[in-house]
């Protein structure tokens, strides 16, 4: 279980993450939402130790993550960042294979190969597995990165806008897979999303950030409410019930409320 305690980040005098304390509930999907520049990526980077915090600490099973060996941590928490420039010429399969690095240091055994194969199947990448990354489309490459993180097989998976560049079909597919990882394998997923309807339909909990502060933290149904959303995004968002799903309508405020 990950607990965030009083975490802050400053750039110069500007506070971009401000005294954030949250618990990531194990065995759930938690969505981070909020406007551009709210501090979602910065928070996620600090939780995953890619970035040092200025104040506060992150606890993994009651232990400060800074005290955990990086080799150990990489078997427990994985992260995929928002933008990934990589100019290494690897095939999709090789890349996904490196997801197993924490376990095998690159010399894959049978179990590793099975995990790689499984991740490729999940991400629908078998047709592309021998293609080089620089010969793929943006969305295909994004799927390869997600497959790599899935192959890493950590209890906690942190994803920063993984649906970037993806078409609707693959977005839905990925959210379903994340759901399966949580429901069937008991994993914990934290995901930054801009499309609040994906957050609404697929996540158990939502954490909303604004100006570096957590302004909402609770169950999805409690946060996907017009009043709460107005507070987060400063705009009128109409919420409709559609086959058990709560759908937000925000494309054109003139259409709302009829």
């Amino acid at each position: 279980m990950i607990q965030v305690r009083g975490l802050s980040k400053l750039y110069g005098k500007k506070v971009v993450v401000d005294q954030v304390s949250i618990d990531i509930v194990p065995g759930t999907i938690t969505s981070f939402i909020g406007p551009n520049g709210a501090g979602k990526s910065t928070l996620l980077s600090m939780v995953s130790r890619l970035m040092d915090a200025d104040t506060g600490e992150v606890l993994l099973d009651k232990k400060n993550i800074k005290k955990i060996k990086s080799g150990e941590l990489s078997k427990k928490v994985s992260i995929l960042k928002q933008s990934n420039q990589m100019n290494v010429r690897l095939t999709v399969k090789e890349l996904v294979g490196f997801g197993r690095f924490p376990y095998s240091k690159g010399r894959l055994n049978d179990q590793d190969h099975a995990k790689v194969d499984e991740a490729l199947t999940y991400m629908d990448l078998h047709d592309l597995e021998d293609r080089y990354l620089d010969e793929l489309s943006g969305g295909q490459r994004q799927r390869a990165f997600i497959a790599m993180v899935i192959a890493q097989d950590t209890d906690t998976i942190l994803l920063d806008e993984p649906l970037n560049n993806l078409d609707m079909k693959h977005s839905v597919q990925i959210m379903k897979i994340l759901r399966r990882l949580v429901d069937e394998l008991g994993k914990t997923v934290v995901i930054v999303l801009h499309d609040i309807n994906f957050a609404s339909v697929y996540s158990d909990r939502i954490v909303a950030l604004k100006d570096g502060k957590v302004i909402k933290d609770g169950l999805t149904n409690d946060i996907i409410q017009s009043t709460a959303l107005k507070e987060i995004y400063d705009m009128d968002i109409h919420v409709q019930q559609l086959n058990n799903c709560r759908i937000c309508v925000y494309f054109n405020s003139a259409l709302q409320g009829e």
Partner: protein
Amino acid sequence: MKIRILIIGLVVLSICSLFVGVSSITPMDLIDYQSEETQIFLISRLPRLVAIILAGAGMSIAGLIMQSLSRNKFVSPTTAGTLDATRLGILVSMLLFANASMLEKMTVAFVFALAGTLLFMQILNRIKFKDAIFIPLVGLMFGNILSSITTFFAYKADVIQNMSAWLQGDFSMMMKGRYELLYISIPVLIIAYLFANRFTVAGMGEDFSKNLGIHYRRIVNFGLILVALITVTVVLTVGMIPFLGLIIPNIVSIFKGDHLEKTLPHTALLGAIFLLLCDMLGRVLIYPYEIPISLMVGVIGSGIFLYLLFRRRAYA
């Protein structure tokens, strides 16, 4: 690019190389251990071959590691100032110790090579404009500055003559007793192979490395130490061999990708083959004289380098 074909190619070329030269030696001559031919063979031909193979493999691997760690395909000992820093180091060792032994030269040159390369990597981190072609240009300028400093002080101290020996790579002087330092590169290459996967991960960038549990800085610094060690042993024994570390890894990358554990053997073999070919050409073209290998590699290498540049443009 099959590993088997490369090995066969290297073996065939090696045999040819052993029997090409001013004094003709045939395999039959070697049956008599006491013969003059056998002596030439053991004192000159064999060391020359070993030196070429080790230098060719070493410089290519050094370039491969640098390209991976700097995440730039055009960074190599030639284009990052490593070679020039090494020369400056050799000069300093000659000025510090009157009759510098090989070990003293090596130690000082190693410190300089490492410092120069680290400095270049720092410059690389600071540059905002990370164009793949701009970076090696900065490296070449950086190298030229170091080179000017070297020339200036060498001139002042009147050791220009002595220094120019380290300027041009040359195998014609490879004799027993002059090339053994190159053996250091054998364990270094083995270590490089054992760390290949870590270098590949580091090549994915700092965030990917941390996610996969690698101490990014530590691995980068360690890789650069290996690069400096290889470069120093090669420059001290053979001299400067430009471009090799640039073109060989790039050619292999085009065909085999950047999974270092898979491409490292290919890179080493192709580097040795290429250098061997250049050496034989240099020996045959103006027979019975020799074109220095640095010149041969420089001419052929810069041609291939230009081709790679334009090829990249076409794909960009």
